[in-house]
């Protein structure tokens, strides 16, 4: 495929437009939430939840819904898992990373078993849910609308509760001592993360989605010294990397997810090197 192919054929143009819209919105949300998650040492929660997302897809397959029609099932399951993870950590039953590991590996194991039962063997469905869709043709009208609505909701809630999120991210103890609703804030972040992960999994795949959460935040933290700037830069870097990675994938005939992440990784490495040079 070449650039002129992408823009000349109206059908292809439509598909590309959809993928770009959903991808940019998801990248933006993932990066913005990622800053809080990375700073609170919850980098792996994205990974854990995406594995639960894989489990949810297997349930969808078992119910005969197919992986194309599964957001309605995965969103509640993953939100529930996020809630469970938070409660496990908060109540001190398990430390955050252990809880994430337990939930994520357990979910994958059960997911693979269900997939195999449902379909008799491991099929390409598993492959595409693990590594993301090789082609983006599978994005339906409903996916498009749902992704847009979800992303707008995530960004809006984040902005409304920005001060609370900052305070809790910086110092949970202080926030709690002065009466801020810390549990609510933790719940909000988990639920928003869950939504972003589920929506993003379609494009990037459940193995790699957590890179979208972590890389832009790390890059931005190298570049800026204030929280507001870190958030802004993370969002911008994430969207730019997605667009670059997406077109690179189209032109080279490679799957979207890995390309986007390789671009993210390169940008991070460049920033790290430049900063060291200074």
């Amino acid at each position, binding site marked *: 495929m070449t650039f002129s192919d992408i823009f000349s054929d109206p059908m292809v143009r439509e598909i590309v437009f959809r993928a770009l819209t959903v991808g940019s919105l998801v990248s933006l949300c993932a990066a913005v939430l990622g800053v809080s998650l990375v*700073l609170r040492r919850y980098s792996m929660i994205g990974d854990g939840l995406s594995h639960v997302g894989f489990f949810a897809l297997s349930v969808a397959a078992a119910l005969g819904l197919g992986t194309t029609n599964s957001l309605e099932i995965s969103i509640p399951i993953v939100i529930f898992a996020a809630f469970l993870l938070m409660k496990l950590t908060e109540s001190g039953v398990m430390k955050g990373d252990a809880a994430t590991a337990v939930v994520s590996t357990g979910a994958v194991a059960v997911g693979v078993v269900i997939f195999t039962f449902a379909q008799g063997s491991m099929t390409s469905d598993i492959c595409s849910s693990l590594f993301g869709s090789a082609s983006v043709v599978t994005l339906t009208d409903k996916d498009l609308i749902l992704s847009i609505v979800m992303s707008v909701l995530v960004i809006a809630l984040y902005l409304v509760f920005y001060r609370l999120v900052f305070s809790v991210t*910086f110092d949970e103890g*202080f926030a709690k*001592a002065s009466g801020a609703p810390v549990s609510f804030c933790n719940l909000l972040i988990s639920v928003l993360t869950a939504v972003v992960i589920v929506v993003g999994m379609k494009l990037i795949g459940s193995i790699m989605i957590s890179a979208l959460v972590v890389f832009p935040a790390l890059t931005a*933290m190298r570049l800026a010294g204030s929280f*507001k700037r870190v958030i802004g830069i993370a969002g911008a870097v994430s969207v730019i990397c997605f667009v670059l990675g997406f077109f690179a994938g189209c032109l080279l005939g490679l799957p979207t997810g890995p390309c986007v992440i390789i671009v993210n990784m390169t940008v991070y490495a460049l920033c790290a090197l430049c900063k060291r040079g200074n």
Partner: protein
Amino acid sequence: MSRILTCTDLTLSYEKQAVVSELNIHVDEGDCLCILGENGSGKSTLVKALVGLIKPQRGTVIYEGLKRHEIGYLPQQSAAQKDFPASVEEIVLSGTLPRSMGYIKKENRLEAEKNMELLGILPIRKKSFAALSGGQQQRVLLARAFCAAKKLLVLDEPVTGLDPLVSAELYSIIEEKNATEGLTVISVSHAPERACHTASKILHLGGGGAQFFGTADEYLASEIGQKYLCADDHHHHHGERRKVQ
């Protein structure tokens, strides 16, 4: 003076291991309560229970006429924050959050500015917290606590790791707040002499359940106070003698 905080038979523990047991103390409006004691005697644990971060195993902590959002808390330094990418201004402003959850209001900004000025960090307000020295970071956290403290300021070792001049300066700013604005202060400290000068009440948590609660004069006269102050004196004289040599 009206009572604002009462602890009754307070017992605090980690996994059945009691750290503070059967503690009875009370704090009145305008008081300055100083908490002394050796490392590991449970000072931070008690302070966390006072601000509601830990649930008591037995007994109660009761506030009267004091709301959660009128408490400013300065935690004992945690390593996780030291490289946090936020500007000084953002952090100080977060102290005003509990009273205005939504957007930052003009009065929030003015209050943050006033406290940054008081602690001498107004010139570095745009700087990143991660790029500050330990003493500057402590000033920022203190300014944030001031913003949140409408009635009660709870400080866990506010001057650890700071040089004597800066320590003295920060202590006098805190004492000033206590004396002129009538702000109630509860402070953990390792400087018994300074504490005895300024505190209206002293709580000493000793190892093995020994406790003292009373006025500074009573503390000076008590056995536990004598012992602790003596150790402190000895330390000082030792230092002086070294300097002379």
